[in-house]
C-alpha cells in the first residue's frame, strides 16, 4: 500500500460535484502534484484529505490507517500538515509565534501548568522557542522572527506558512498552490525549498496550476478537471496527454 491513499473520494456542493470519484496514491517520500484548471476541485480535494470538509463518500488512508472520518486536528496529529491557498497566518502574532504554534502537537503543557509556570512547562517553552527559531533560520527568514506575520510581503508569508507546517514535524506535507501570487524568482525559490523538504524524508502533495513549477519538481502528476481525474502519470507523459492539453489550452484548438 502506498503511504497516502485516496479512494473514490466524492463531495458535492448542492448539485455541483466538486470532487467526483477521485482515487490516487502517493508513495512514501515522493512529490506528487494535483493540477487542473480553476474550479477543477483541487482545493476541495485537499480539504477532504485534511479533514476540513467531510467527504460524501470515499476513503483516505495514511500509512494504512483510515483518516477520512477524523476532524482536522486529529489528522494533523497523525502527521499531515498543510498550507492554505489564501495564506492563513495568525494575526497579531509574530513570525516566531506563528511557527511556535506548529510545535503545539509536539508539546504537552496544559492550562494549569501554563498558569503556574511550572518548571517543566518553562523548559518545554524554551524548547519550543529554540526549535522554531532553528526552523526559521533554516528557511532563511530568521531575521523576520520578531515581525508581525501578517504584515510581511506575500512571498515571505508563504515561507512562514510552510515553516509553521514543518514545525509540526509532519510525515506528509500538503501544499495548496504554493506559487500563487509569487513572481518568477520567488517561484524558483519555493521549488528549491520543496525539493529540500523532500530530502528530509517528507512526502509531499502539492496543488498547483503553475505548470512550470509542477513539471520541474514532481515525480508524478494527477490531473483534475470538473471534479474528475482525467490523467495520472509522470510529468513527461502528462505534458503529451491530449486530454490534458485540451482542458488546459481550451477547446477552440481548431
Amino acid at each position: 500500500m502506498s503511504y497516502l491513499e485516496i479512494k473514490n473520494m466524492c463531495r458535492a456542493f448542492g448539485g455541483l460535484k466538486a470532487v467526483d470519484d477521485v482515487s490516487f496514491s502517493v508513495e512514501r517520500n515522493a512529490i506528487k502534484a494535483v493540477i487542473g484548471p480553476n474550479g477543477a476541485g483541487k482545493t476541495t480535494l485537499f480539504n477532504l484529505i485534511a479533514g476540513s470538509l467531510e467527504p460524501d463518500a470515499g476513503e483516505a488512508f495514511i500509512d494504512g490507517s483510515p483518516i477520512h472520518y477524523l476532524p482536522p486536528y486529529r489528522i494533523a496529529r497523525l502527521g499531515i500538515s498543510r498550507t492554505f491557498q489564501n495564506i492563513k497566518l495568525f494575526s497579531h502574532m509574530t513570525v516566531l509565534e506563528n511557527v511556535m504554534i506548529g510545535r503545539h502537537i509536539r508539546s504537552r503543557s496544559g492550562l494549569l501548568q501554563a498558569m503556574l509556570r511550572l518548571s517543566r512547562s518553562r523548559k518545554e517553552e524554551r524548547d519550543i522557542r529554540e526549535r522554531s527559531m532553528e526552523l526559521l533560520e533554516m528557511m532563511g527568514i530568521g531575521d523576520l522572527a520578531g515581525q508581525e506575520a501578517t504584515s510581511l510581503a506575500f512571498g515571505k508569508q508563504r515561507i512562514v506558512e510552510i515553516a509553521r507546517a514543518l514545525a509540526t514535524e509532519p510525515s506528509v506535507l500538503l501544499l495548496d498552490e504554493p506559487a500563487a501570487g509569487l513572481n518568477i524568482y520567488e517561484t524558483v525559490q519555493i521549488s528549491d525549498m520543496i525539493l529540500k523538504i523532500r530530502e528530509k524524508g517528507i512526502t509531499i502533495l502539492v496543488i498547483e496550476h503553475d505548470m512550470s513549477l509542477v513539471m520541474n519538481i514532481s515525480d508524478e502528476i494527477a490531473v483534475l478537471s470538473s471534479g474528475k481525474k482525467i490523467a495520472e502519470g509522470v510529468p513527461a507523459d502528462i505534458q503529451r496527454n491530449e486530454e490534458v492539453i485540451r482542458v488546459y489550452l481550451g477547446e477552440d484548438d481548431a
Partner: protein
Amino acid sequence: MAWKKYIPVFALIACIIVFQLAVTAMSREFYLTQLTMAAYYSLVILGLTVLMGYAGQISMGHAAFFAMGGYTSAVITTRDLMNVKGAVLVDLARDLGLTIVEKNAYGSDIEHLSPWAALAVAVVLTVIIAFLIGIPILKLKGHYLAMATLGFGIIVYRIVLGSRLFGEADGISDIPPFRIVGGLAVSGDPALRVQNFYIASFLVVVGVVLLMNLIDSRVGRALRSIHGSEEAANAMGIDTARYKLFIFVLSAVFACVAGVFLTHFNGGIGPSEADVMKSVSYVAIVAVGGMANLWGALIMGVILNYLSLRGYFGSYDEFVFGSILIVIMLFVPEGLLRMENARALARALARLRNNLGADRKQ
C-alpha cells in the same frame, strides 16, 4: 530575563501600596471601599479579556457567572443551621469543621456554613454550568455567540429575580463576613477597609500573573491562534473546540470568584448584579481596555468601575457604558488601548506639530 516581564506587576503592587498610604495619610480611607469593589469587578474583566481579546470569543452573559458565585455563597452562608440536628449532610459539614457559629446583628448565636465551603461549591457549580452551556454555545460564532450568551444572561437574571430562594427583587442580605485566615476577613466593616483593599488587590495581582503566564504559553498561543484563524489552528492540530471551552470555563470561574468575594464584602447581593446591562458594561470595559490587552483592561476596569460606583455617571450609568460600546465598535473595533493606536496618535500629533510649525513660519 524572565523576571523582566513581571516589572508591570511590581509597578502595580507599588501603586496599590502607595495609594493606600496616601489615602490613609489624608484620612480619606472611604475611597478604598469603592476601589475594593472596583478591584473585584476588574477580576471579571480580566477573565473576560482573555476570552474576548485573546481567544476571540464574546460573552454577553458574564454577569450571570458573577451572580452565580455571589448568590451561591449568599444562599449557603445565610442558612441558620443552629436548630438543624440529625441531617446527614449538615452533621458531616460539622464534623469536617465547615460550619461557623457566630453572633448575628441582633446578638443571638447562629450557625452557618463556612464561606470557604461556599466558595468551593460556587466554583464547582460554575464550572459545571459553564461547561454544559459552553459545549453547544461555543459552536456559534460572532453575533450568534453574542446572542446565545445574552440569552443565557437573561435566563439567569430572570431566575434570580423570580425565585424565593434568591430573595426575588430584594436579593439576599445579612451575609456573614468571609474569614480567610487569622484576623483577615472579607467584610464591609469600615474598620477593616484597609485589609479588604489589600485582599482584593491581592486577588487581582494573582489573577493578572496567572493570566499573563497563560497568554505567554503553549495554551495561550493556541487560544490566540483561534482568534487569528480557527481553520488554520485546527490544521495545526489544535482542538479548537476544547480550548474555547477551557477558556470560557476559566473566565467564568474568574467572574464567580469575584462574585463570591464582593458579595461577602458588600454583605448582600441583589438581582442587578445579574442584569444584562452589567454584562454589557463588562464587555464595554474590555473593549476600551484594548481587547487583547490585560493591563489596559485592568486599568479601565478599575477606573470606569470606580467612577460608576462613586456615582459620577449618575442615572446615566447605563447610557455611558452603552455609548462606550457603540463608539468603540464603530471607530476602533480592535479596542482602544492598543500599541498601534498609541503609535497612530503619536504620528498624528507629530503631523499636527509640524503643520503648526509650518504655519508659524509663513
